[in-house]
């Protein structure tokens, strides 16, 4: 049989130009250990209820296992444990935020989502260099909205490191 092969001579179809830089960013906020954290809403694929994952043997503790997301196998991470805030005993009120970053898809176990924040990009400050605090290396920025401080997660730091590929 013949499989459709793209004509090698065809120039790629030009992609739409990137949209002009937004001066606002939307963040999905949630609470962990009494503090507010958030992720860029552009990396959120969906939010779904908690279901018990199948544990992965010999995986780091923050990797709680895998669940069936409409036929694909999705790893679930305990964000609280990942950030050094202690293991979270999941309950029915918890949710899984399915995020996509660096071409990888993973579910983050968090307590109920609290809010969607719209923050001007110039209100984002660099996270302070808190060497003592383990969670600081997972932050890309901090921002004030109202009286509340939200900690914006750096998803590339949060994702579990991929062990070396096979070949």
């Amino acid at each position, binding site marked *: 049989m013949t*499989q459709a092969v793209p004509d090698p001579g065809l120039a790629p179809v030009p992609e739409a130009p990137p949209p002009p830089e937004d001066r606002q960013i939307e963040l999905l906020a949630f609470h962990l250990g009494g503090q507010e954290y958030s992720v860029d809403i552009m990396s959120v694929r969906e939010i779904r209820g908690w279901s018990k994952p*199948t544990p992965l043997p010999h995986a780091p503790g923050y990797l709680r296992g895998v669940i069936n997301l409409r036929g694909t196998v999705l790893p679930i991470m305990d964000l609280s444990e990942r950030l050094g805030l202690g293991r979270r005993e999941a309950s029915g009120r918890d949710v899984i935020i399915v995020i996509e970053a660096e071409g990888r898809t993973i579910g983050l176990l968090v307590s109920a989502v609290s809010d969607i924040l719209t923050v001007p990009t110039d209100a984002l400050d660099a996270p302070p260099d808190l060497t003592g605090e383990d969670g600081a290396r997972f932050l890309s920025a901090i921002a004030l909205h109202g009286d509340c401080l939200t900690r914006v997660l750096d998803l590339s730091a949060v994702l579990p490191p991929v062990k070396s*590929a096979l070949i």
Partner: protein
Amino acid sequence: MAGPDPMDAIRKTFFLECEDLLEALLEGLDALSAGTGDTDTVHSVFRAVHSIKGGAGAFGLDRLVTFAHRFESGLDALRTGRIEADAGALQLFLRAADLLGDLVRASRDGLPTDAGAEDSVLADLDGLLGTLQEEREEDLDFAPALLAIPLDDDDADDAPAPLRLSFRPHEELYLSGNDPRHILAALSRLGPTEVTCHTEALPDLAALNPESSYLHWTVRCAPGVTAADIEGAFEFVAGLCDLEVTADADPVPAAVSVPADLPPPDKIPPGASTPAPPPAPSSAPAPVATTQTPTVRVDLDRVDRLVNLVGELVINQAMLSQSVRQGGLPPNSPVMAGLDEFLQLTRDIQDSVMMIRAQPIKPLFQRLGRIVREAASRTGKAVRLETSGEGTEIDKTVLDKLTDPLTHMIRNAVDHGLESAEVRRAAGKPDEGTVHLAAHHRSGRVIIDVSDDGGGLDRARIRARAIERGLLSEDADSTPSDLDALLFQPGFSTVDTVSDLSGRGVGMDVVKRAIQTLGGRIAITTEPGKGTTFSISLPLTLAILDGMVFEAGGETMVMPLGAVLETQTVTGADLDALTPESRVLRVRGRMLPLLDLGEVLAHHPRRDDLAGCVALIVQAEGGSRYALTVDRIADQRQVVIKGLGDSYGPIPGIAAATILGDGQVALILDPIELREHAPGARRPLAETMP
């Protein structure tokens, strides 16, 4: 390696494209008949026939060209509004489209066609066009040639005098993208040519208009250049220049002028010179009477969707069978018989679908030929690559993922397997070493062998190296196959200097991992002085696995059924502790190392009492066995293999995952890795007792 004739490939492309075009043609005509077509539909219908004609002409398929041309004329009349798209006309066009399809397939397969049907459709087309006939004839007349040079008949016996010409481009010549340079160059390619450029008309630079034509040329052509040659060279600029051609010997330039412009069609004089139609290109292969299996082009995504659906069907079938069996129906009841048939059909569908993804291994072997040549030239060894079983088909995904491991194995074979020419000569072998790549199917798996006729594995050296690396204790009593298996240990390398070819820190352990990821196994056979064969055995598909489903440590898991030799319920009497860490299980008089799965996977701590558990007797590498205790066996069934995704690296002992009927994810175990990574299960791994 001589490639196939590219024209053959294009010919195949043409017939594939014809099928697409015929489909578009029928679709368009149907739309027009249903009244849902528009101008675009008419154009696309016309274009379909037009493209078939164009390609057919290139391959000298004259019958097809003639018919397509007349059909096209009819559609052209429709396109230009000279005839109505009424029911009669569309009926006729649909008949013509069917016949065109017959002609295309007949041309492809070299079969005869029904000339009567062809004539009848053509006659009807003529009838439809009626008085438009003459325009059709005019279409056939593609006669650019309008230059006629009267040559003196008296000179016929002598060599004809060289021709001279005067060439004065108009501005329009340049604007049409023509360039006198190329025209004169084309002329001078025919023989020594004298070209004189006349620059008298050039104004001062200040007054020069770069878009104007100031130059003209006189040319004395090479002897033997004919008027037709000149006509050809100036074909594209007729009407865009003044051109006068004279015979050189003629003292009086009796001018013969080129017609000033292309006359519109209605001004072409009757009987104007009409050159014979161009000969069919010599490179076009004559239609040969080969039967090509018709093919369709399908998106790989669609195939994969089908593969997945069939996978779900297989699972569903298995679950249905199970619940019916549990319902307590007698085995010879009609329902059970029907289920058996359903099972057979499901498997047939599955096999057929897998065949769609299968591709011959030949292109991969061809790529590896290049690796051999490169490795040979870098090591300075003379190496010949032999291949067999190139037609063996294998799942496309498996095929794609085989490139890296096979590349590495081929390099290894040339680099480490084959001896230098001096050593070979001393051993009475030809200087030229041989690497053999072979593929074949055996009992539902694909076997790929990579063999060399080199010196074979040096087991003494392997042993020494393994001891040095701490992989083997000095007093270990290892069988030859144990030693061979050490090659696959991480970090093992028998060559002291890191080779440019096989080095880069990549060893056979990585090859083995890659093969295992594909659900495959790799084995070595070697004979000192004669050579080494690495044999890879792969599943035909990556999509579905026959599995044993069981529970351990509170989780449901799957073991590939092929790895389970038998099962046995554990009693306290079967169990012996060799050391505090290692236990053995008596299985029909033999002692097998025992692993408790829940403990290995850290689902629970070590437990001493395993009575009541079920032991799977699992086949590991090289025929060795071990016992794996689980809590309860649930089922034997086919499962659809799902990757664990790339969000986390490889997990030792886990090959993949699957989704069970209740929606839960279950992990699929890798029996060999499980053993290697188990705590307290270090080497030696061979059976401890006879």
